[in-house]
C-alpha cells in the first residue's frame, strides 16, 4: 500500500455524473494521492485507503442518484441502520460479502475480457470497415485448410478486380536479426513485411517519419524499415535521430524511415519492425505458392455483403479459368474483428455463461442465508409494524441491508476482477488476443455495479417482501409472536406508565442490538408501550431506523 491505488480511484470516480467528474475528478485524484502519502507517513495507509474508497463509492452513487442534495434522507438512514445490524453479525456479513465478491469478481473479470476482445472495436479508424481476406481449401481439393494464406497471383488479381474494397494490403510475417555489426549486438525480433496499401487500409501512418515510398516498394528498391514505438523506445531510447540512420537488419544496412504510433501492433503486438513487401507483377510466382496474408478496407458505399458477393463472382470465374487450382479452393472474407478474436470466441462466451450461472447460484445461496436469518427477525419486524412502520418502510429497511451487502460484495468483486485480470495478462499475455488492451475501465465498473444491483434485487427482494407481510393482522405470524410474548406483560397502571416512559430508551437500545435472548424479554415491554402509543399522537411514534420522527 505504499503506492496510492489511483486507478481504482479513477474507476470509482466513474460512478459520479459526468459534469461532476469533469469539474473535480483530477483534483480529487490528486487530493487522494496527497492524503495517501500522509497516511503512509502516519503508518495507517490501509485504513485511510479503505475508508476513502468506500466514501468515494458511496458519495459517487449518492451524487448520481440524488444530485447535489445532502444525504441522510430516509434511505441513507436505513443504510446506516443496516450497517449497524451487520456489524453485530460480522461472520454473517463477511460470509455474504466474500461469496458475493467471488461471484461478482469472476463474472466481471470475464465480462471485461469479453468486452475488450469481442465487443470493443479494434484500435483503428472505422475498424468495422476492415476485413480479412483468407484462402480456404475444402476437402474436395485434396486438402483441408479452413484458413490459408494467399498466393501472389491470387492477391494481385483480386486487387485488380475489386471495386468493393478501397485498399487491399498484403503482409507476411517474418523474423529478422537486428544489429550484429560492429556497432551493436545482434537481436532476433518479430517483424512483418507490408505493402504500402497496408497503411492505407489500417488508416495509420508512421509518426515521426513516413510510410514506404513508391520507389521503395519497387522490386530491388532500397532497404528501409519502420520501427514499432515500443522497439524505438527500448532499442533506440526514443531517439528521433534514428530516422534516416542505417541499422543492420539481417546483415544489410537498412534505413529507418519511420516509427509507428504507440499502441500499433499489426499483425501482432510483438511485431517490432516492418519492411516493404515487394510483389513483382511481372514475376509474381506460382499460383499455388501461398505465402501472403491480406486485409482490406471496404470502399465507400460498399457493404460486407456486397464485397462478399463481388468476390463470389470472381471465384466462379477462377474456377472456370484455373480448374486444377481452384477446385475446392477459393478466397473468402471475414470481418477483421472476428478474425482477431476468432479462436477464443466460443471459449470466452462459454466462460461468460458459466460465470453468469455462478453469479446466479451465489445469489440463490445468499438469498437463502438472508431468508434464514430473516426468520429469526420475525419478531423484530412485527414490533416495527406495531410501532407504526408502514410496509414500504419495512421493505426498504430489508432492501437497505441487501444494498449494503451487495455494494460491499461488488466493491470486493471489482478488486478481485482487477487483480485477476492483471494476473491473467501477466501469466500468459499471448493466450488471449488483444490481452494488453484488457484493463480496468468504466465499462467494467458499470458491469460490476450492475451485477451487484442485480444480486441485491435477487437476494434482497424475497426477504424484503416476506418482512412486509409481518403487519399487525390477526392471522399474521408476526402478530402472533407479539401476542404470545406480550401475554405476561405488566398490567399495573403504574408499571405501565413507567414502562411507557422508557419506550424511547428501550427502542433506542433495541434497534442497536440484534435479537437475542435478552431482547426477547423486552419484546413484551415494547408491545405494551406500543399499545399505549396507539393513543399517542402519530408523529411521536417510533419508526425503524429512527425512533422518533426527527425534524431534520
Amino acid at each position, binding site marked *: 500500500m505504499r503506492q496510492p491505488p489511483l486507478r481504482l480511484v479513477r474507476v470509482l470516480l466513474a460512478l459520479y455524473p459526468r459534469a461532476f467528474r469533469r469539474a473535480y475528478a483530477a*483534483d*480529487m485524484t490528486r*487530493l487522494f494521492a496527497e492524503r495517501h502519502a500522509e497516511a503512509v507517513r502516519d503508518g495507517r495507509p490501509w485504513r485511510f485507503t479503505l475508508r476513502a474508497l468506500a*466514501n*468515494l463509492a458511496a458519495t459517487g452513487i449518492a*451524487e448520481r442518484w440524488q444530485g*447535489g*442534495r*445532502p444525504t441522510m434522507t430516509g434511505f441513507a438512514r436505513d443504510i446506516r441502520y443496516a450497517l449497524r445490524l451487520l456489524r453485530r453479525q460480522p461472520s454473517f456479513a463477511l460470509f455474504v460479502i466474500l461469496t458475493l465478491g467471488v461471484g461478482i469478481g469472476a463474472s466481471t473479470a470475464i465480462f471485461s475480457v469479453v468486452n475488450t476482445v469481442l465487443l470493443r472495436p479494434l484500435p483503428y479508424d472505422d475498424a468495422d470497415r476492415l476485413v480479412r481476406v483468407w484462402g480456404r481449401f475444402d476437402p474436395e481439393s485434396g486438402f483441408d485448410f479452413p484458413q490459408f494464406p494467399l498466393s501472389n497471383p491470387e492477391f494481385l488479381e483480386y486487387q485488380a478486380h475489386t471495386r468493393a474494397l478501397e485498399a487491399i494490403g498484403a503482409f507476411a510475417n517474418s523474423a529478422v536479426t537486428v544489429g550484429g555489426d560492429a556497432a551493436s549486438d545482434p537481436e532476433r525480433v518479430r517483424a512483418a513485411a507490408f505493402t504500402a496499401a497496408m497503411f492505407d487500409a489500417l488508416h495509420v501512418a508512421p509518426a515521426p517519419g513516413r510510410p514506404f515510398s513508391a520507389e521503395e516498394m519497387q522490386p530491388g528498391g532500397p532497404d528501409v524499415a519502420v520501427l514499432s514505438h515500443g522497439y524505438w523506445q527500448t532499442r533506440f531510447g526514443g531517439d528521433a535521430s534514428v530516422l534516416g540512420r542505417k541499422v543492420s537488419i539481417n546483415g544489410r544496412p537498412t534505413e529507418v524511415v519511420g516509427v509507428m504510433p504507440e499502441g500499433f501492433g499489426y499483425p501482432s503486438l510483438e511485431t517490432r519492425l516492418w519492411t516493404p513487401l515487394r510483389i513483382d507483377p511481372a514475376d509474381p510466382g506460382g499460383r499455388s505458392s501461398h505465402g501472403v496474408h491480406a486485409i482490406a478496407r471496404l470502399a465507400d458505399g460498399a457493404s460486407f455483403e456486397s464485397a462478399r458477393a463481388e468476390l463470389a463472382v470472381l471465384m466462379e470465374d477462377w474456377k472456370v479459368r484455373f480448374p486444377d487450382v481452384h477446385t475446392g479452393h477459393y478466397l473468402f472474407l471475414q470481418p477483421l474483428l472476428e478474425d482477431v478474436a476468432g479462436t477464443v470466441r466460443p471459449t470466452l462466451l462459454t466462460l461468460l455463461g458459466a460465470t453468469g450461472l455462478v453469479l446466479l447460484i451465489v445469489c440463490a445461496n445468499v438469498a437463502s442465508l438472508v431468508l434464514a436469518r430473516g426468520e429469526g427477525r420475525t419478531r423484530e419486524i412485527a414490533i416495527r409494524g406495531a410501532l407504526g412502520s408502514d410496509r414500504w418502510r419495512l421493505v426498504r429497511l430489508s432492501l437497505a441491508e441487501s444494498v449494503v451487502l451487495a455494494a460491499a460484495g461488488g466493491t470486493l468483486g471489482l478488486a478481485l476482477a482487477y487483480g485477476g485480470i492483471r494476473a491473467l495478462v501477466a501469466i500468459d499475455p499471448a493466450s488471449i488476443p488483444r490481452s494488453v488492451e484488457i484493463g480496468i475501465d468504466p465499462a467494467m465498473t458499470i458491469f460490476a455495479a450492475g451485477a451487484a444491483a442485480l444480486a441485491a434485487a435477487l437476494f434482497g427482494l424475497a426477504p424484503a417482501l416476506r418482512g412486509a407481510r409481518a403487519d399487525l393482522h390477526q392471522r399474521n405470524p408476526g402478530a402472533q409472536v407479539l401476542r404470545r410474548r406480550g401475554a405476561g406483560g405488566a398490567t399495573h397502571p403504574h408499571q405501565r406508565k413507567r414502562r411507557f416512559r422508557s419506550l424511547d430508551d428501550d427502542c433506542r437500545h433495541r434497534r442497536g442490538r440484534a435479537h437475542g435472548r435478552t431482547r426477547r424479554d423486552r419484546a413484551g415491554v415494547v408491545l405494551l408501550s406500543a399499545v399505549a402509543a396507539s393513543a399517542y399522537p402519530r408523529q411521536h411514534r417510533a419508526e425503524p431506523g429512527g425512533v422518533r420522527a426527527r425534524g431534520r
Partner: protein
Amino acid sequence: MGMTDDPRALLPLPPHDLHVLLALLESPRHAYGLSQTVGDADGPGGAVRLEIGSLYRVLARLTAKGVIEDFDPPPDAEGHEARRRYYRITAFGRRVAAAEAVRLDFVLRQARRHRLLPSKGGR
C-alpha cells in the same frame, strides 16, 4: 442551478457544509487545506472526519448554490500550490453562515433552557 437569494432557504446547513464554511471564513483555501483544517481537532471543524468524496460533494453543492466560489491560485503560488483550485466564501455565503449561526444560537438557547448546557456566565 438552484440559486436563491434567501439564505434561510439553505437552512439548516448539513454539518459538513457548515464546517467547510467556517474554515473558509478564516481564509480562502484549496481542497487539501480544507480537508486538513476540517479534520484538525484544534481547527474550526473540531475534528470532523471529511472524506474526499464527501468533501467534493460539499464543494460542488455550495458552488452551485453560490455560497462559495473557486478561483485561480494566487500568482505567488509555486509548484503543487499553483495547480490547485482555491475556494472562498461569497457575500451570499457569509449571509448563509450568519443565518445558520442565528439558528444554532436559537438551538443552543433551547438546550440551555433544558439544562443541557450551563447558562451563560455561570458554571
